[in-house]
């Protein structure tokens, strides 16, 4: 801030001195000079290490210096004469060195060095031989640098300066073009405002020098317009600096937030805040299957390039750890995305490990569910095969025996044997029926859970009340699991509880099937339950459900099963 105040003081001084002797300086002149000096000072305040600030301040002062040419005072006039075109060199440096403030290549250093030599060195040399009254204007003050008057050398040097100036400016334009051509999309977005305004100015300057426009007093309208454009350059630079500074602030906030061990952080929200993209999504790399998963371990597909969403992959030690799925606008702020990713790297890696764990769990869960489903399918198949095969064949044999029995004379010796065989077959069929219903109750497939539970109640050896409110068929594996758990619980209650009555309830509560078997028995059923119950628990858990038994001694037993249906 001190620098800023000092700078403003100097500007005011120069402004006063310039305005004092002459009224010629226009608002555009002031705008241009102050724009460079002010922006330069602010830039220096934001980024003391970046030389662009100094370059902008220099350019601003050099511009004001060139205005001193209109002063009537000899020393001021001489300073103005020396600095007449120095600002062009400063300006070239600012544009070429943006945004790093450093000249990156030999070509850049050559061009900018050449610009300084031509704009200041040659100018100074020419002034040593210039009699201002002879060459420039009759009313001009004396040139204090004049050593000896030599019109030829002075004019030749001026001629050389003009030619070399055009070459240097064109070379600078070529450097900018090259830079643009090589820049990535994100980089182009960053440098575009400065590069285009700066480039346009340089092109104009090349024409101006070539046409000697600069020798004439500031008059033509195009020049005034151009001054506005030039004034925009330092503002554009400052804007770019501030934008990055704000980004750095966001990153700093993120680091603090992630580093706080007392508050668990929603990483997605924190990153969304830091990047200014509320729609941000996170996907974590799951190396076991070479795909991305979300925080819960569910599969995530990264968006296609050029789609409405973009993905930025975060790597650590050359391995992808996560991907940010974000708005394409963020693409042009790649520096911010990179710094945010760097700041969140460790947390992202942690979250990735958790996501991987969840993905593995989900996989395990899915494989359990598949196992149960496969078992179920197999049981259904066996039941159907029994029904369509063995049972039908046995019924057919019973019919044949029945026919034989009918055709035999009542007093035939084998008649009782045939009757006996048919009776035995009937018993076998009854047993087979029980067996096949134990493997898979066909009524479950035919009519669904309510009918199957109703059938269960009818066949129970204790009075059983049924209270079922299901408005739709549930997934087969849910119905089957629920049926077998209830069936097992009913069997247990009848065998062990000394109950006199049973209640079976089933309903859907927010997408979860809740089934209960309650008895009025002695309670005290072991938490572990029988092997049958253990198997049921496995089955229910494979479907993401849970099974609980509450059995206080003397107060009956309640078995409750919950299975998600969605």
């Amino acid at each position: 801030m001190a620098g800023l105040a000092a700078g403003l003081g100097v500007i005011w001084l120069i402004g006063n001195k310039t305005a004092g002797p002459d009224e010629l300086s226009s608002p555009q002149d002031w705008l241009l000079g102050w724009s460079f000096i002010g922006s330069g000072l602010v830039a220096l305040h934001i980024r003391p290490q970046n030389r662009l600030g100094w370059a902008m301040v220099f350019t601003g002062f050099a511009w004001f210096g060139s205005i001193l040419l209109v002063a009537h005072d000899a020393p001021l006039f001489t300073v103005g004469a020396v600095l007449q075109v120095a600002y062009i060199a400063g300006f070239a440096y600012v544009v070429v060195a943006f945004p790093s403030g450093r000249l990156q290549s030999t070509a850049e250093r050559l061009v900018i060095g050449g610009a300084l030599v031509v704009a200041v060195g040659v100018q100074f040399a020419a002034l040593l031989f210039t009699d201002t009254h002879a060459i420039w204007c009759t009313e001009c003050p004396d040139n204090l640098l004049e050593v000896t008057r030599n019109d030829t050398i002075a004019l030749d040097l001026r001629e050389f300066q003009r030619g070399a100036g055009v070459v240097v400016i064109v070379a600078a334009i070529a450097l900018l073009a090259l830079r643009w051509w090589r820049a990535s999309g994100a980089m182009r977005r960053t440098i575009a405002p400065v590069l285009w305004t700066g480039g346009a100015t340089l092109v104009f300057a090349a024409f101006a020098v070539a046409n000697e426009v600069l020798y004439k007093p500031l008059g033509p309208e195009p020049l005034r317009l151009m001054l506005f454009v030039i004034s925009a350059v330092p503002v554009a630079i400052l804007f770019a600096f501030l934008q990055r500074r704000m980004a750095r602030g966001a990153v700093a906030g993120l680091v603090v937030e992630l580093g706080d061990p007392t508050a668990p952080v929603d990483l997605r929200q924190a990153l969304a805040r830091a990047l200014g993209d509320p729609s941000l999504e996170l996907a974590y790399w799951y190396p076991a299957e070479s795909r991305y998963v979300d925080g819960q371990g569910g599969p995530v597909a990264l968006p296609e390039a050029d789609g409405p969403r973009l993905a930025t992959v975060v790597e650590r030690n050359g391995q992808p750890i996560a991907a940010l799925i974000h708005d394409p606008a963020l693409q042009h702020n790649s520096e911010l995305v990179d710094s945010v990713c760097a700041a969140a790297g460790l947390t992202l890696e942690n979250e990735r490990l958790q996501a991987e764990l969840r993905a593995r769990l989900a996989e395990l869960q899915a494989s359990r569910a598949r196992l149960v489903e496969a078992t179920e399918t197999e049981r259904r198949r066996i039941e159907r095969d029994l029904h369509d095969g063995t049972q039908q064949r046995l019924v057919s044999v019973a019919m044949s025996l029945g026919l034989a029995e009918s055709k035999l004379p009542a007093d035939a010796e084998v008649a009782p044997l045939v009757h006996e065989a048919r009776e035995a077959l009937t018993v076998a069929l009854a047993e087979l029926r029980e067996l096949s219903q134990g493997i898979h109750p066909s009524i479950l497939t035919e009519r669904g859970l309510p009918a199957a539970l109703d059938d269960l109640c009818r066949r129970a050896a204790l009075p059983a009340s049924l209270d079922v409110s299901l408005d739709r068929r549930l997934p087969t594996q849910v119905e089957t699991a629920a049926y077998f758990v209830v069936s097992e619980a009913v069997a247990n209650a009848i065998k062990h509880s000394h109950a006199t009555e049973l209640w079976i309830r089933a309903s859907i509560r927010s997408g979860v099937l809740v089934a209960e078997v309650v008895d009025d028995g002695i309670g005290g059923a072991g938490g572990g339950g029988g092997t049958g119950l253990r198997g049921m628990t496995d089955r229910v858990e494979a479907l993401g459900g849970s099974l609980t038994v509450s059995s206080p001694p003397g107060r009956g037993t309640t078995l409750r099963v919950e299975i998600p249906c969605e």
Partner: protein
Amino acid sequence: MRVVVADDAALLREGLARLLVEAGFEVAGLAADAEELFALVERCQPDVAIVDIRMPPSFTDEGLQAAKEIRVRWPDVGILVLSQHVRASYALELLSDGTDGIGYLLKERVSDVEELRAGVERVGKGDSVLDPLVVEQLVGRPRRGNAPLDHLTEREREVLALMAEGRSNKAIAERLFVTEHTVEKHLKNIFGTLRLPPSTDDHRRVLAVVTYLDSQ
């Protein structure tokens, strides 16, 4: 009596047809699914249609649905549904649309030519037939507390079961080797104990009794 048979398994269809012929019925046609059955009933106008409960396409309860449709489209045709399962709920569902000429029997039951003949004849006459195992399930079902059914004597329970199977007083008397008068006395007692309105109509009382048994 003219009879048609619907069963998707050819083995059972043919076996049943032979038994029916042996029992003295005229087998007017055989069908493999519900659609064939409807066409057959339309063409032959049989006295009784014997229908397997599990048929294509879904192999669940097509037979039951087919029976209901026949009841609506050809009310005079008796329907005997055959099942491999003892399902009181299915039997009740069948009877709920009217007990006249409706039967529900286990498949192996009809391997006995006499049982088959009796079943088909009763359905053909317009009586109802319930498989003894289904009735056993209904009557033998455990009941809570002081159920009226528990106050019946052993003999009365036997009469109740036979009545629920759809048998007439005469048939019950023959079964139990008693006189019809004795059966009537038992029935009076049963209806009194269960607090059911006395009914002499063989058809209606089946539904009343079965519904009572199911609701208690």
